[in-house]
C-alpha cells in the first residue's frame, strides 16, 4: 500500500473510494502507478523491451491477414518475408503520416539481429531456429488476437459490420478468388460457408491487431529514446506522452485487405470509417488488459465449480489481474511474451534485476512485474484519454464537471473492487502501489 496519503488536489472533498489515493492521483493528472524514479525506469525499460518483439508481431500479423489469409495448413506463417520486414511503418521514418519515432520505418535493427542469431547466438538456418523455438514467440500475438476475437461485443462499429451482408459479400469475393482452381476447398466452402466466413473474420481481427500494434511500436521506441535523453520528469510525463499519442492517432483507419495473386481485395474497406480508437484500441484494452481467458490449469473449467464467470464481461484474467509468479510454468501464455521481452531488456534493467530476489534466475518474473506496472500506466493513459475525450479537463472550474470526472475515475477503479469471483483480490492495483512488489 502507499506509504503516504495522497491528498485531493481539486476543490472536491476527499474521495471515499477504497483506492482513494489513486483517485486523487488521477485527478491531479497522474497515473494509477505511483510517481517514483524506479517506477519510471521499470516502465520505460519494459516499453522498449516490448516494442522490439511488437515490431515483429505487427508485421507478421499483417502478413498473416493479408497474404496467408485462409491457407488451410499455414506451416510457414511465422516466416516473415523480406517484403514485410521492409514494410514501412506509417508512423516512423521520413515519409511517415505522423512521425512518432525519430528512427527508421523498417524493422528495428535489434529485431533483425535476434532473428538471425536467436538466443543461441549462432547463425544457423532459419528453419532450425524455428524448430528449436528460438524465435520471437508469435503465438502470444495470436493469443491476443484470439482474445479480441472471442470477446466480441466490446463496442465499436466493426463488430456489427462483421455480421453484416456487405461483409459477407466482400468475404465471399475474396474467398472465391483465393481458392480459384482449387475444387476441394471450393467444394468445402459450398458445404460449410459459415466456417470459411468465421475464418475470414478471424483474419480481419488479425489485421486489426496488426494495425493497432503498428502504432504502439514507434510510440514505445520514442518513449525509450526520450527517457534516455532525460526528457521524462516522472511517470505522469510518460503517461501524458501516451495520452497525446492516443489522440494523435485516434482517427487512423482500420481496415482489412487481402492480396490474392497481386490483386488487393478489400474485405473491410477504409471507406467504412472505422477508427483506431474505437475499433482497435478500446477493444484491445478491454480484451487483453482486462479479460482474456483463464490459463489452462489454474482455474477449473467445470461449469458446476463456478470458477469461470458465465458472463464474458466478468472475465478478469488480463494483465491487470495477472498473478506474475507462475510465469515460466507450462501453459501460462505470458511466459512467451516475457521470454521475448527478456531478449531485449535494456542494460540498466538487467543490472537492476540482478540486485533483487534471485537475481538472474528469476529475471523473467521480475520483468513480468515491471511489465504489469507498465501496462497499468498504459491503462491509466487510456483512462485519462477517455476523460479528456468524453469528459472535462482536470482544472475545470465547474464543480459539477469535476464531480463527473470523479465518478468516471471511481467507476473505472470499481472494476478492480468487484468481490464477485474474487476479482478484487486478483486485481494487482494495490500491489503495484508498493515498490517492494517485484
Amino acid at each position, binding site marked *: 500500500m502507499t506509504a503516504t496519503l495522497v491528498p485531493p488536489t481539486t476543490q472536491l472533498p476527499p474521495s471515499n473510494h477504497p483506492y482513494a489515493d489513486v483517485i486523487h492521483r488521477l485527478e491531479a493528472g497522474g497515473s494509477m502507478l505511483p510517481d517514483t524514479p524506479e517506477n519510471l525506469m521499470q516502465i520505460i525499460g519494459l516499453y522498449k523491451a516490448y516494442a522490439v518483439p511488437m515490431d515483429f508481431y505487427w508485421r507478421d500479423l499483417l502478413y498473416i491477414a493479408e497474404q496467408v489469409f485462409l491457407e488451410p495448413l499455414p506451416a510457414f506463417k511465422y516466416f516473415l518475408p523480406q517484403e514485410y520486414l521492409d514494410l514501412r511503418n506509417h508512423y516512423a521514418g521520413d515519409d511517415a503520416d505522423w512521425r512518432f519515432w525519430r528512427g527508421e520505418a523498417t524493422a528495428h535493427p535489434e529485431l533483425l539481429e535476434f532473428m538471425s542469431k536467436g538466443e543461441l547466438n549462432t547463425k544457423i538456418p532459419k528453419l532450425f531456429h524455428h524448430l528449436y523455438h528460438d524465435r520471437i514467440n508469435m503465438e502470444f500475438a495470436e493469443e491476443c488476437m484470439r482474445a479480441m476475437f472471442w470477446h466480441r461485443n466490446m463496442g465499436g462499429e466493426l463488430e456489427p459490420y462483421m455480421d453484416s451482408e456487405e461483409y459477407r459479400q466482400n468475404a465471399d469475393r475474396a474467398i472465391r478468388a483465393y481458392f480459384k482452381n482449387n475444387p476441394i476447398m471450393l467444394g468445402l466452402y459450398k458445404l460449410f460457408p459459415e466456417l470459411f466466413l468465421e475464418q475470414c473474420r478471424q483474419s480481419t481481427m488479425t489485421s486489426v491487431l496488426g494495425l493497432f500494434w503498428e502504432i504502439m511500436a514507434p510510440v514505445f521506441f520514442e518513449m525509450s529514446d526520450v527517457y534516455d535523453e532525460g526528457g521524462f520528469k516522472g511517470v505522469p510525463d510518460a503517461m501524458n506522452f501516451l495520452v497525446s499519442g492516443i489522440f494523435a492517432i485516434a482517427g487512423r483507419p482500420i481496415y482489412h485487405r487481402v492480396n490474392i495473386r497481386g490483386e488487393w481485395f478489400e474485405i473491410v474497406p477504409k471507406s467504412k470509417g472505422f477508427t483506431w480508437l474505437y475499433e482497435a484500441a478500446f477493444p484491445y484494452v478491454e480484451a487483453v488488459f482486462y479479460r482474456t481467458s483463464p490459463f489452462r490449469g*489454474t482455474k477449473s473449467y467445470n461449469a458446476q465449480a463456478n470458477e469461470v464467470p458465465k458472463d464474458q464481461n466478468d472475465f478478469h484474467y488480463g494483465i491487470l489481474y495477472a*498473478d*506474475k*509468479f*507462475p*510465469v*515460466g*510454468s507450462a501453459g501460462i501464455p505470458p511466459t512467451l511474451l516475457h521470454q521475448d521481452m527478456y531478449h531485449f531488456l535494456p542494460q540498466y534493467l538487467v543490472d537492476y534485476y540482478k540486485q533483487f*530476489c*534471485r537475481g538472474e*534466475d*528469476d529475471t*523473467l*518474473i521480475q520483468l513480468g512485474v515491471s511489465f504489469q506496472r507498465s501496462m497499468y500506466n498504459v491503462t491509466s493513459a487510456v483512462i485519462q484519454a477517455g476523460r479528456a475525450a468524453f469528459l472535462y479537463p482536470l482544472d475545470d472550474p465547474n464543480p459539477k464537471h469535476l464531480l463527473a470526472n470523479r465518478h468516471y475515475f471511481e467507476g473505472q477503479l470499481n472494476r478492480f473492487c468487484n468481490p464477485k469471483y474474487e476479482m478484487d483480490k486478483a486485481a494487482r492495483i494495490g*500491489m503495484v502501489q508498493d515498490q517492494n*512488489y*517485484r
Partner: protein
Amino acid sequence: MLSALIWLPVIGALAITLLPQSQSKKGAIIVASAILILDVLLLKQFDTNLAAFQLSENLPWLENIGLNYSLGVDGLSLPLVALNGLLTWLIICFCENQIKERFKLFQVLMLLIHAGVSGAMLSTNTLLFVLFYELVLIPLYLIIAVWGGLQRSYAAMKFLIFTAVSGILILAGFLALGWLTANPTPIFDYSTLQTLSLPLEVQITLLVVLLLGFSIKAPFVPFHSWLPDTYVESATPTVMMLGGIVAKLGTYGLFRFCVGLFPDAWALLAPYIAIWAGLGVLYGAMVAISQKDIKRMVAYSSIGHMSYILLAAAAATPLSLIGGIGQMVSHGLVLALLFYLVGVIEEKVGTRDLDLLNGLLNPLRGLPTTSALLILGGMASAGIPGLVGFIAEFLVFQGTFTKFPIPTIFSIIGTGLTAVYFVILLNRTCFGKLDNATAYYPKVSGLEQLPALILTGLIIFLGVQPVWLVKWSEKATVKIAEQSESKLLVSQVLNESLTSPLIKN
C-alpha cells in the same frame, strides 16, 4: 575390519575434539568418508552364499560374566551397517546449514552415535549388544536437546526415558536368558544361544520382555508416543539419523533376538503379533492423514511403515524376512529423504504448516527440485513400483499373505492410506499458487540438493534393480526361517510336556 568400523568413528570423534573449530568439518568429512569406503569394502568382501556370521572377531573380555568382545556380520546386519555408513556420511558432509552453532560438538556426537549403532549391529554377544545399545543413548539425548525446535528439551527427556526403559527391559531379558541357560557361566554368545532351547513358558516370558523393549525402540503402536515429539523437535540431520537407522535397532533386535532366539514362542504368538502389526499400520496412516504439520505427518508415516517390518517378522517366512530387511533399508532411505526435504522447505519458506504452504513447484520462484524430489519420496513411501518402497512392501505382502491374510490386507489398506496423506501433502505443498505477498524465498543451492539427489538416486536404483537390496540377506533369512519351521515342528510335538530334555543337564 569390523572393529575398524566401530572404533574408527570413536577415534575420529576424539581427534576432532582436538582440532580447531574451522578444521573440524574437514576432519569429520575425512572420517565419514573413510567409514563409507570401509563399508564398500565390506560389501565386496561379504560372501552372499554363506548364512553364518562372517568376518568374525572374538576377544575375551570379561569371561566370568560372559561378556566377550565378539563381532560378526551376516545378511541381516550387513545392509543396515551400510545404511548407517551412508546416512552418517550424508549428514556430516552436507547438513552444515541446518546446524547453526557448536558444529564440532555435533560432528563428535554424530560419530559416536554411528559407532554405537554399528557396534550394536555387529555384536554377536547379547550383552555387548546391550552395551552398544545404551551407548547410543547419551549422545542422542544431547543431540536432540542442543539443536532443534522450541520443545526440544521436553522431547529429548521423553526420548531418554522411553529408550532407557527399553534398554532396561532388553538388558533384563538378556540377563535372564543368560542365567537360565547358564552352564555354569551365563551364556551371552548368540551362536550358542541359537542352539539351545528353553521351556515354552520361559520362552514366552523372555520373548515378551524383549519384544516390549524392542517395540519401544522401533517404535510400534502403542509405545510410540515419544516419536512424534522427538522427530518433530529434532533438527533435520538428527531426525535423519534417528528415523533412518537408530530406529532400526529396534527392528534389528526383533529379527535377530526375538525371531532368531525364540522361534517356538514366536510361532505361538505370531498370529497376535501379526494383527498388532496390521492395526499399527492402519493407526499410523490414519493419524498421519489428520496432521497439519508436514514434519509430524512424515513422523507418523514412519510409525506405520515400521509396522510392516513387524508383520514380516510375525510371518517369519524366508520371503517375508527378506521383505522385512528390505523394508528396513527402504524405510531408512525414504525417511531420510523425506525429512531432509521437509527440513529444506522449513528453512527456505519458514513454515511447516500445510495451510500456509502452497505452490512450491513454481519453476522460478519456488523450490522446484525440492518439490519434485518430495513427490518421488512420497511415491516411494506409498509403494509405487519402480522405487524401492514397492520392492520391500511387495516382498513383505507376498511373504505374509499365505500365513496371515487378514493382517496383510490391513497393511495393504494402510499402503493405500499412505498414498492418501502423501497426496494431501503434495497437493497442498507443491501444487497451487505461490502467495504473492510472501513468496520471496531464497534459492536452494546445488550443494543443498545433493544429499536428496543421492538418496533419490539410490531409491530409484534399488527399485529398478532390487537384487542389490536383497542378495545380501537371502541365505541368512532362509536360515532363520528354517530354524523357525523346524522348531515349530519340535515344539508342536513336545507341546504337552513343558520341559525340554536339554534342560535336565
